Structures are given as structure tokens and as C-alpha cells.
């Protein structure tokens, strides 16, 4: 299955990636080859098979909603590229 340049641009936007023309071309070719290989899965009839998202028989693991210590504001901000007044600073949104 061939991935068009338009497909690559659409997926790049969804992925929030900014690709160069060269990358668009390369990923288009590579993803086409990889997806062609994945096409092998269509050989199997899976109409009656249920999907496995993970292998453990665990569901809805809950804990009591109790207050407990967490990292403080300073620690939470220590890796921020830009911060101001105890908040993460980003470019203007609206």
C-alpha cells in the first residue's frame, strides 16, 4: 500500500511533527514498505477473534481517594524550559 505525500503531511500534522521535503519523501517510501509488510496480517481470518490489549486479567485497579504527599511546585517546575510565577510559560495561545 503506497502512502502519498498528502498522507504523510496529514499524519505529520496529527503527530505534531514538522518534516522537511526530504523527510516527507523518505518516510513516504519507508512507511509504504513497512505497511506493505504489515498487510500480511490480512491473510488471517480474525472475524471471531477478540482483541488483546494487554495480557493481565486486571481491570479497573482503584485505590482509596486519600490525600498523600506528592512532589512540590518547585520540583515539578525544575525541568521546565520556561517558567514564570510558579507556572509553565508558553507562547501566547489566544
Amino acid at each position, binding site marked *: 500500500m503506497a502512502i502519498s505525500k498528502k498522507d504523510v503531511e496529514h499524519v505529520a500534522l496529527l503527530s505534531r511533527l514538522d518534516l522537511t521535503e526530504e523527510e516527507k519523501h523518505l518516510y513516504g517510501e519507508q512507511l509504504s514498505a513497512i505497511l506493505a509488510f*504489515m498487510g500480511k496480517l*490480512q491473510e*488471517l481470518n480474525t472475524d471471531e477473534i477478540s482483541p*488483546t490489549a494487554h495480557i493481565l486479567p486486571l481491570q479497573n485497579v482503584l485505590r482509596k481517594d486519600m490525600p498523600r504527599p506528592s512532589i512540590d511546585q518547585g520540583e*515539578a517546575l525544575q525541568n521546565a524550559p520556561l517558567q514564570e510565577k510558579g507556572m509553565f510559560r508558553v*507562547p*501566547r495561545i489566544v
Partner: protein
Amino acid sequence: MELYEKTIHELHELIEKKEITGVELNKSVYERIAQVEEKIKAYVLTMDWEQVLQKAQAVDDMFARGGKIHPLGGIPMALKDNICTKGVRTTCSSKILENFVPPYDATVSQKLSESHTILVGKTNMDEFAMGSSTENSAFSITRNPWNLECVPGGSSGGAAASVAADEAVFALGSDTGGSIRQPAAFCGVVGLKPTYGLVSRYGLIAYASSLDQIGPITKDVTDCALVLSAIAGHDPKDSTSVNKPVPDYRNFLTGEIKGMKIGIPREYFGEGLDGGVREKVLAAIGDLEKLGAEVEEVSMPHTEYALPAYYLIASAEASSNLARYDGVRYGYRSKDASDIVTMFKKSRSEGFGSEVKRRIMLGTYALSTGYYDAYYLKALKVRTLVKGDFDRAFEKYDLLAAPTSPSVAFRTGEKRDDPLAMYMMDVCTIPINLAGIPAISLPCGFSEGLPVGLQLMGKAFGEGPLLKAAYAYEQSAGFHLAKPTLNGEV
């Protein structure tokens, strides 16, 4: 024999008998790192000697005061650089996390600290654990200690190389599709991927959450059992961690495997398997038979579908997990962005390497409208079929045996530009992650002068019998005693 060459259990005995101190041991490993790290490049970073000395001294003092020393007490070890260490940079070998200093410890880091091990460094890896050669690191290429012209495997290539080159007594890696076992095989050491849910993933930087699992890379099976006993167990901070009592895995190391039933899945010995690897793995299976195991061929018909299913599932989960790298709260932020979407796009494009971008694109595509059913959902259904093969086989057999990798270590650069050829390197390890079961790789001889790995697979939470068989084989074969020469042109 130098101290840095020894195993955990040998060193522990020497420490207990007061023949050596923790400080002496850590000094020996530090001198070894100074001597060989330039050649191997196993580490993203090593800890300051002063810090290590202080910790080793503290262990010695505690012991001198009459305290009991943990089997891992004072042992210098390394952690793959996707395992969070409080106050110590954790990069995932990615530019996007180059300066990330976690404000907390992964549960395994904390457990190893409580066992009084000593962290000597964070090991190199394929960026975000995506790769099979450690060539996808943003920082350096790690070399195989058995031949410096070859890759150490991946993605835990730095961890396996550090143990093989005696730059750490043991290491922890992570395994999503073979990332502990394949580098362990390439570097001639022991690597275990535990059952999904046995070891907490809290603080492991996520790649594919339904497949990721942390495990030990060690010099022999006894050390593997010791490290596993220290890191396994329920953790309320990981909702997929299972609440089961953890045995002392050493109790399984009896050497006695008479009557154990071992299945040999014929699909793992098909086209694409290197002749030298086949010969050594079959010889190892013959040895298991001589030790009293009952060996029989078995068919696992969905094996060939595991690889495409894996790369869809893992990439889909990765595209979601890696959405968090947006340049807002931590990690790299592009300097030239005036609006928020441009900031996201530029930060991610400049911060991620090409394999990571490729898998994010693949995963996003597989999850996008119109393709979800054909790719992602289809892959999840095939996962059920792959797991079914294992369920059926384990009704009859205690263990399964196969190669870890279809070839020995390949040359640096050989597969770098062909993603599909690189993905094929994981063909023998991936089905195990889809099924969530444990598997171990251990050295079973050499082909073309490079180590070959025997892979044993066990039932879910059957690490005990798995280690039992691995130990019996190792003790009779003795390949774990071979040491690399660190030769070759770089």
C-alpha cells in the same frame, strides 16, 4: 582474577568474609571504566567517583558496625538510561530529554538503593528504546566488546556491553520486543525479560506500555536470580503490577531438570536463521536433553504474524506515549516559535531522531480514522492468536527453547538505513512480549567469533522453573565464563 571480573555472588561472599571492602570493589570497577569506556562507550554518563566512594564507604561502615549485608550490598551496577533516577540525568539517549533530571526515582531504582547497590552510571540505548543496535542513540555508538566493529544489539546495548566489558557487575535494561535478550545474546551475557506485571514499571520512561518490562542483565544465572528477587514485587504506583508473593529465586537453582518437558517451536528455526546460530542452539537443546529434559518439537503456527502485529501495536502505543514531549513541562523546547502549535512541532522535530519519528508516524497512521480497524485492531486480534499458540504449548510443556536472535551481532552501519531489515532482528523475541510471558537469553557458544544466545521461555510467572533450567544448562556448558577481548578496529 580482578574484582571487576567477578559475579555478584562471588563478590558478596568476599565482602561477607571481609576479604574485600565495598570501596575496593567500586574502585576496581571505576578503574576498569577508565581503562575501557573510551573503546566501548557503554555509558551516557557515569557518576562522580566521590559520590560512589561515599556510598561504598557507607555500606562498609554499616557492615563494620555489625549490620547484615544484603546479597547486592556494595555491588556497583548500571541502569539503562530510560529508568528514572532522582537527581541524576535520565535522557533515553534522546536530544529531547538530554537535560532531564527526574524529581523522583523509578521503583526499581529505589529498590536497588534499598538493597545498598551502588549506581555507577546510566547506559546508552536506542533512543526511547526503539531499535536493535543502539545506533539510534543521539549521543554515541556503543561497541560490542567481542568485536568493536559490531553492534552490541539493542535497545539495551549499553547495559549489555557494560556487563560484558566488566564496566558494571550487573545492569537493568528494559525489554519491549527483545531489548534485554537480544543485546544479552550479542554480548554473551545473561538477560531476562520477566513476566509482564512482575516488576514495577513506575519511573520507566514509557515506549509501549502493554509490552514494556524491566529486567536484569548479569554475568550468570545465579546473579540473574539475585537481582530479580530484589526488583520483583507488587507496587501500588504501577496499576499493571501484580500482587503475588515473590519467592527467593535462588531456591530454584538446583541443577536438577530431570523430566522437565521442553518444547522446540519449529517456526523459530525456519528461513532466515543463520546456520551457525542454528547449530549452537540445537547443540544446547541436546545438552538439556542429556541433563534429563524431555525434548519434543512443537508447532506455533502464528509465529510469522507476530512481527507485523508487534510493530503496529508498539508504534501505536508509542505515538500516544510520546505525545507528552511538547516542550512545555520538561525536555527540549525549540527556540524559534512564536505560536504554540509551531512550538510543539519544532520542539518535537528538532528533539526526536529519525527512528522515533518514523514510529510515531506509523503509530499515528495505524490509529487514524479509516485505518484503525485494518491495522491497529487487526494487530490486537492477531496478538490473541499469538498468545493462544503459547497457551496451547504450555498445556503440554514446562518451557520452550529457541534462538534469541536469528544471527550473531552484525556490523555497525550494516542495517542502519533499512528499517525493515532491522525490525527482522527481533523476530525470535517479539512473540514473547505479545504473550507477556518470561524469557531468558543465555550464552550457548560462538559463531564467527561472536556469542550465540539460547532463549528459554516460560509460563506466566514461571520465572522459577525458567531459571532452574537456565542454571542447569549454564553449569554444564560453562559458556558464561568466557570473557571478551575488546579487540577490533573502530
